[in-house]
């Protein structure tokens, strides 16, 4: 992902109390030898092998058809028809070439560039799609719908990851995204049902998110409790509380307490008619449009404004921020609470957009995937946005393939987003370096 945060990936020297420059050579004439990271070419080789053995040699005799436009659309583009066998061979050749390049670069002690890894990922996904669609009972898939669905599924992830970025950039580890989403979903459903207003529901969701994050802030900033533990405890607390209220109160009064109104889709005339992009970007609920706004604003805010400079400073070196007169803990409180508000909006998406009512633990671990998106996106809003899209795509693949009737067991498909998460976070993006002071409470001596 080329939209990483503007930080070099040099390792931080072991910080000793005595001197933080301990490990680094002092000045110019940098003496380095190449560090060969063999994990990238090895990983690429494994994937190429999978593509060769499964997608190419085991290719179905069918033609996979990717529909791009609906017949009723203003502009109708022809379908993409890919004969499974030949397409797989071509894509495997591309994969093999990329792998060879990666080996060559690594042997020469150079890094595998991001675009090469990106090209590889794209080709692999394409090969997988052609194979799986070609082997399905129904060999036609609506590509635009697949992508648009990914965007929809990614919405709560993106809200969640923005909450994570806000909190972690200021130095507070936010494991409680899951709890914030769930609390938002719950309160949005209840208040929305009671008032009949989606806006009241949205505001309630924001309040719920802020409440959960306020608990996180109080315990981790004021009382210096381990932030990971507070986060985990909050998740369990919110899950337990909402489940309890759901089964004791909501399920008996679902018509008055658990049938919230829903945000309407807003089609932007003209723009929504652009093939592929139109239905994906310009046919959303107000929450979806708000999401784009928040991602953009957060990126601009963090990297171009005084507010962002201070938030980042507090997350990197709170004492330095303190010595120039920045109120460290107040900045952290505000960031965490703001994050809670954003996560609450993401929670509202569950009950005011995607489902018609609240159900037990309906966030199903999405808060943790959002956390992964934060790391994968290197604590950069735009990076996290694309990471969340990737995760959304993996989830949607699972749904679409289940409908098509693929040879791959659905349980395996259900693992897909989590597998992607592990690979993404573990190795492919190189070392991801977060805010230095994240997780460390600031105590003024």
């Amino acid at each position: 992902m080329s939209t990483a945060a503007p930080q070099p990936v040099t390792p931080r020297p072991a910080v000793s109390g005595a001197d933080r420059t301990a490990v680094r050579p002092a000045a110019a004439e940098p003496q380095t030898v190449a560090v060969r990271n063999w994990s990238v070419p090895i990983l690429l080789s494994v994937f190429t092998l999978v593509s060769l053995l499964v997608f190419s040699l085991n290719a179905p005799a069918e033609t996979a058809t990717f529909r791009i436009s609906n017949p009723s659309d203003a502009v109708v583009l022809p379908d993409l028809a890919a004969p499974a066998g030949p397409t797989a061979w071509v894509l495997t050749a591309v994969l093999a070439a990329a792998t060879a390049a990666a080996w060559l670069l690594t042997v020469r002690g150079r890094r595998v560039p991001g675009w090469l890894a990106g090209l590889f990922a794209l080709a692999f996904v394409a090969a997988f799609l052609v194979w799986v669609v070609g082997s399905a009972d129904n060999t036609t898939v609506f590509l635009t719908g697949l992508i648009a669905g990914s965007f929809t599924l990614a919405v709560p992830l993106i809200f969640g990851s923005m909450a994570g970025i806000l909190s972690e950039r200021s130095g507070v580890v936010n494991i409680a995204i899951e709890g914030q989403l769930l609390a938002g979903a719950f309160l949005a459903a209840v208040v929305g049902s009671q008032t009949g207003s989606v806006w009241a529901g949205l505001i309630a969701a924001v309040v719920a998110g802020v409440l959960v994050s306020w608990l996180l802030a109080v315990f981790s900033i004021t009382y210096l409790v381990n932030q990971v533990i507070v986060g985990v405890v909050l998740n369990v607390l919110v899950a337990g509380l909402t489940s309890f209220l759901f089964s004791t109160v909501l399920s008996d009064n679902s018509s008055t307490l658990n049938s919230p109104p829903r945000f309407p889709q807003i089609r932007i005339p003209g723009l929504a008619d652009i093939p592929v992009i139109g239905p994906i970007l310009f046919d959303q609920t107000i929450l979806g449009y708000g999401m784009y706004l928040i991602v953009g604003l957060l990126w601009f805010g963090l990297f171009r404004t005084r507010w962002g400079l201070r938030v980042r400073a507090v997350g990197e070196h709170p004492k330095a921020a303190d010595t120039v007169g920045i109120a460290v803990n107040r900045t952290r409180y505000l960031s965490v609470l703001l994050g809670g508000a954003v996560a609450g909006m993401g929670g509202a998406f569950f009950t005011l957009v995607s489902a018609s009512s609240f159900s037990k633990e309906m966030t199903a671990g999405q808060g943790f995937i959002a956390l992964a998106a934060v790391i994968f996106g290197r604590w950069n809003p735009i990076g996290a946005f694309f990471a969340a899209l990737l995760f959304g795509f993996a989830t949607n693949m699972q749904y679409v393939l289940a409908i098509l009737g693929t040879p791959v067991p659905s349980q395996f498909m259900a693992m897909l987003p989590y597998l992607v998460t592990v690979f993404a976070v573990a190795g492919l993006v190189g070392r991801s370096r977060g805010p230095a002071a994240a997780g460390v409470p600031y105590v003024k001596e």
Partner: protein
Amino acid sequence: MKLELRGITKRFGSFAANEDVHLTVESGRVHTLLGENGAGKSTLMNVLFGLYEPTEGEILLDGRSVRFSGPGEAMRAGIGMVHQHFMLVPVFTVAENVALGDEHTRAAGILDLEATRRRIREISDQYGFHVDPDAVVEDLPVGVQQRVEIIKALVRDARILILDEPTAVLTPQETDELLEIIRQLRADGTAVVFISHKLREVKAISDDITVLRRGRVVGTADPTADAAELAALMVGRDVVLHRAKAEPRLGEETFRVEHLTVVGPTGQVLVNDVSFGIRQGEVLAVAGVQGNGQTELTEAIMGLQPKATGSVRLDGEELLGRSTRRIIRTGVGYVPEDRSTDGLVGSFSVAENMVLNRFDTAPAGTAVQLRPRAIRELAERRVAEFDVRTQGVDLPVSSLSGGNQQKVVMARELVDGLRLFIASQPTRGVDVGSIEFLHDRIIAERDAGTPVLIVSTELDEVMELADRIAVMYHGRIVDIVPGDASRDRLGLLMAGQTAGDTDQEGPRA
């Protein structure tokens, strides 16, 4: 501008870090606060800078009483501070660091870094700083980082500049440059508070000297005062600044490092093809500015660096590739650079720390169990022998002062039958009284016939202890010179300049 501290007292619980301190600083003068580590200099300055609230007393600026609730207010009042550990965000650029807290903004809080860059260039040109506003701070050498700190203060129109132990991390050349900068600032009418315990610099730069000991002002002195006089005032008793040690009785060369190279995790060559030998009864001191590979050199010898190649031989046995435990068992004593992170477990008792590396051998214990009584007895004996000031060996070691903690480490490592003794920064953050004691023990170990390797960034310490001095720069040993080499020559070597004449042993013998 005139700054006055009147009767400042700062207590932490029952401990008084500052007691009734009076101090006057005037513009156009350099006022030095002289005192040992732990004398209360930094506490006093943190009070002045608004980081600490004084328990008693008042601060007057131009005769008016002021009270700072935080550093922001102190800065607005014209006080700037260069902290001992730089207060810079490593991943930020110079401009971002300078702007932080005092940002130029356009509408809606949008940063205007260009205005900051302009100011940095102006100041940089005025004082000859050569600082690129767009450089990322963590990539800069410490000397330049320090200038960034000074720029930070000047951008905020500091009329009083506090420099807290500014020379601790600098080469002698960089120190000279800094002193020149201070002279310029003084000429421009800035009041400078210079905090140090290094007598040479203090004498070179000061207009007034105030000496602190145990939180109290114990006297003022004139910069023309004799160094020994200043030292005595600082320590509270007469100090022998340079003691003659006996000529070394050299034995065989039992320790030899050949072509040792250490590569860091991202591929930086931290130690570059280093070779040297140490004879029995000899002290080889490695001098150099912090971060030139000395730490990694000792760690590689102790088996603590995964990517080390070459050869490290003790009595003909190869140590490289052995586990640290086996190297210790071979008979190597090792005092690591940072006692609080690598040398001691702070929450463990003095007794437990005393057997950290030998807990599973007699008398401390066996492979399955500890013998608490034996450990206590052993610890009590060592505590008495090394004059560790503690209320008891059962107290957590973190409750001791820095000097006493260091004595605990030293007592643990200086056991009988050593075949090699390595000490990295043996007296960092240790009071002068303890320094004398620790130096005596090191020399005693040498005289017992052990090869001794010392790493120190304090030139005074190197010259005090060394029979030969190896100077490291960018991971290489630039030269190995006799122990009585001149300060100037060592200074040049530490900056990486090789002298034409090499004597005794070449850089790669």
